[in-house]
């Protein structure tokens, strides 16, 4: 099978997967116990007023009618209006998603840069004190709850030494004319540092451990001996030959991690009062705000599905031995 037919086949699978995810989400939220109007409606409202609200959200219609409308809306990328804010779901997503992406991508880049580098080195220096300490660090990073690390960072560097801001993306009262203007300001970077580093610390363990074990596998292969026999320097062998060949598993891991990054980190967003999409997703689910919950989960699912697809394609580019059969 050629690359073109692979892309077509996978694209069709993407559509089917996306439909399945949307359908599951639609019914899952409606099968959840709890009535969305309980959260929208003031206890003081008269029964007639309650009924009008239920009708205005289309919640009085049969399930299959709601489902067909939902599919129609998804096809036009219209996820409806939030039950709570009355704002279009796209507006809700576009308000919170960029904040999350800045935080998560910053953490992701830091984590994968240091994780991969330390993974290469620990694989290369197997059995050394350095390897043991990096492995322990990686395991700690994955084991210690990130919210606890976040709270400790706030307590030590925020409350005690007062060197980091304790909450939010910007200082109180600071307004920016544009999103780009905000994220390039010193004030924003100061607020970004602590949550991004805490998240990076948590993320870092995964690429580090994968890279290390992948390196160990590659280092046992014959071509490494050939490289040495050719008289190449250790650094060249380590980074140019061994590390490049060990990168393949990282691509899959990174694609999935990037996908999940779109969902944000509820705990970190909560601890650092970061206005991200993760908190908004949880809030929407807890309040049965179906349109926002569906919209945000659909975006998350779409990102993961697409990035997996991209990872599949990248395999062939990174390793010509991979075929599309």
């Amino acid at each position: 099978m050629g690359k073109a037919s692979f892309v077509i086949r996978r694209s069709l699978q993407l559509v089917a997967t996306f439909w399945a995810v949307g359908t599951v989400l639609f019914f899952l939220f409606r099968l959840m116990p709890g009535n969305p109007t309980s959260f929208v409606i003031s206890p003081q409202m008269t029964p007639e007023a309650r009924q009008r609200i239920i009708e205005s959200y289309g919640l009085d219609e049969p399930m299959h009618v709601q489902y067909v409308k939902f599919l129609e809306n998804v096809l036009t990328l219209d996820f409806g209006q939030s039950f709570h804010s009355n704002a279009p779901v796209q507006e809700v997503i576009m308000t919170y998603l960029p904040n999350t992406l800045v935080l998560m991508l910053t953490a992701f880049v830091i984590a994968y840069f240091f994780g991969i580098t330390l993974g290469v080195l620990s694989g290369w220096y197997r059995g050394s004190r350095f390897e043991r300490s990096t492995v322990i660090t990686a395991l700690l990073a994955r084991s210690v709850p990130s919210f606890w690390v976040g709270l400790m960072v706030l307590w030590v560097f925020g409350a005690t030494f007062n060197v980091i801001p304790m909450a939010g993306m910007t200082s109180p009262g600071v307004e920016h004319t544009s999103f780009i203007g905000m994220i390039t300001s010193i004030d924003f970077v100061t607020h970004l540092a602590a949550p991004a580093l805490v998240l990076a610390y948590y993320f870092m363990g995964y690429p580090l451990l994968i890279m290390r074990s992948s390196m160990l596998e590659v280092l046992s292969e014959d071509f490494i001996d050939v490289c040495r026999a050719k008289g190449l320097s250790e650094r060249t062998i380590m980074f140019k030959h061994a590390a490049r060949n060990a990168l393949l598993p990282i691509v899959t891991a990174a694609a999935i991690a990037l996908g999940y990054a779109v969902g944000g980190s509820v705990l970190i967003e909560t601890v650092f009062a970061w206005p991200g999409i993760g908190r908004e997703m949880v809030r929407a689910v807890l309040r049965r705000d179906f349109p926002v919950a569906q919209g945000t989960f659909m975006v998350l699912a779409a990102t993961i599905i697409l990035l997996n697809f991209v990872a599949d394609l990248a395999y062939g580019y990174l390793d010509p031995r991979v075929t599309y059969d």
Partner: protein
Amino acid sequence: MAEESNRVRRRSFLKATTAGGLAGMTALAGCSGGDQSGDGTEGDSAGGDSTETSGGDTTESEGSSSGSSLPTYTYVNNSQSYNPPRHDAINLIARQFNDIGMDVEVDTLEWGTLFNRVSVEYDYSFSTWHTFFTIDPVLELSSTMHSSNTGQGDGNFSGYENPDVDELLDGYMSEPDEQARVDMVHETQKILMEDVPQMPITHMPAAAIYNKNQTGNWQGELSLGFNSYWTMVNLEMKNGEDTLKGYWPETLSTMNVLGHNDENKHTYQFTVMYDTLLRLDNEGQLNPDVSLATDWNRVDETTMEYTIRTDHSWHDGEDLTAEDVAFTYNYIAENEVPLFSVQANYIEGAEVVDDSTVRINMSQALGPFNTMVATQVPIIPQHKWESRSNPSQANIQEPVGSGPLMFDYWNKGSEFGLKKFEDHFAPVSFEQRFWRIIPEASTVWELLKNGELNYEPFGRIDRSLNENQDHEAIGTVFQPATSFWHFTPNQRQDGLDDPVLRKAAVNSIPRTPIVEQILFGFPQKGFNIVSPAFGPLHTEDVTRYEESKEKARSRLEEAGYSWNDNDVLQAPSGN
């Protein structure tokens, strides 16, 4: 002395509130009338056991176990993470119920599920949450206690029906004479506290928690406590501070004053962004000095006239006129705005009499029109709203009101800012007010102490408050509030339609340990569905229920209940 003996040592108490704490629970002197010999120490469980056992033995020997079994009851509980103190309190109460022979299981549910189970499906036996009463207790009681509201989701989730109460509630609403209304609401309380369809476990306080180096003169008001309009216009700033800096744990949802869902976070903003015809002061009196209307008059049973200020304007500079006021009332009635559906039910229409006078015609007589309607309906600008056909679903980004604070900015999810409206007739003393969205409580306390925040509008009553209230930078003011933790039995379930069983349950509620230990002594023990905060509307002359499991047992025994060999409560024969 009784109070002292009711106290439970903390360790044994905590043990009791966990699943494995059965032994510790029997040491809860607070639920056995305070007359047990044990002193409630941790090692005293044997003493507690023996007290309970002997009581049970006595009852068993005297009671006939020929009655029918009562069903297993379900006490729905919120999760520990949602509200830790209430979760512990419900577990504690359920265990006390088991101690008097009721078969009670606790079902812990996610909040949305719980609320729906109770308020819509009526699928529960006992429920508890924090009830917020509004400006007039009868408004709430008409929803929760009137027999016309027992349909699904209509408000009367206890299933209580009493024609006498219906008549009193209806009479109160239409009675124009204030003293007659007071008498009616007193009578209503007496009946309700005798029938116990609902019982307050604790009367929660309104709390002003603030940085005392930056703010002062916190005066609360009846319905919105220390987040009220009255509080804001009387607040004093200190040491050159000109910004009131607050927080809220979750983001605001909307800037639509007619389209929010009555959550406090929105009400606290809109109450200072929009004027209402009348305002209450901290004595609960209508105060023309801080109101849009400087005078008012009941023309007849169904007609009110208000004299409004003619020198006031909207935040965008347009004049606020009598036409705006009449438009507001007509608009809410014509559009059947759900948020104000109760008020809209009483509004026939409004008309402008002259430049300073507005007449409001009621569709049916409403005695407390001023408190239930004139203090509640926000006056909105005609030039902004007349083109909006679906007001409750309008997506508004920059609201225009006429209150003492005007919209400044809204960084969604992060921060919401208001600034002083210089031309207001009751100006605030600060230049701006912002709320940051900070979900983490420990962060809030650090910011309060270091002055980055200077007030705590959420009013958390919890361990953190207990630990931080004595800090040199923290000031607190407490006053009775209208809200309470309610205990509500579902009368649709077998046995719970019997007032005797409900009263016995109330006798068993361990209010002392809940107040003293779970809530660190901040609230008062609950005793009346109409809180003392309501002033003249409240009466002390209601049936009081002793906090005693022995009293509960003797009450049941006198009514013909019995216990089987396993000490399980049996309904009276013939029931």
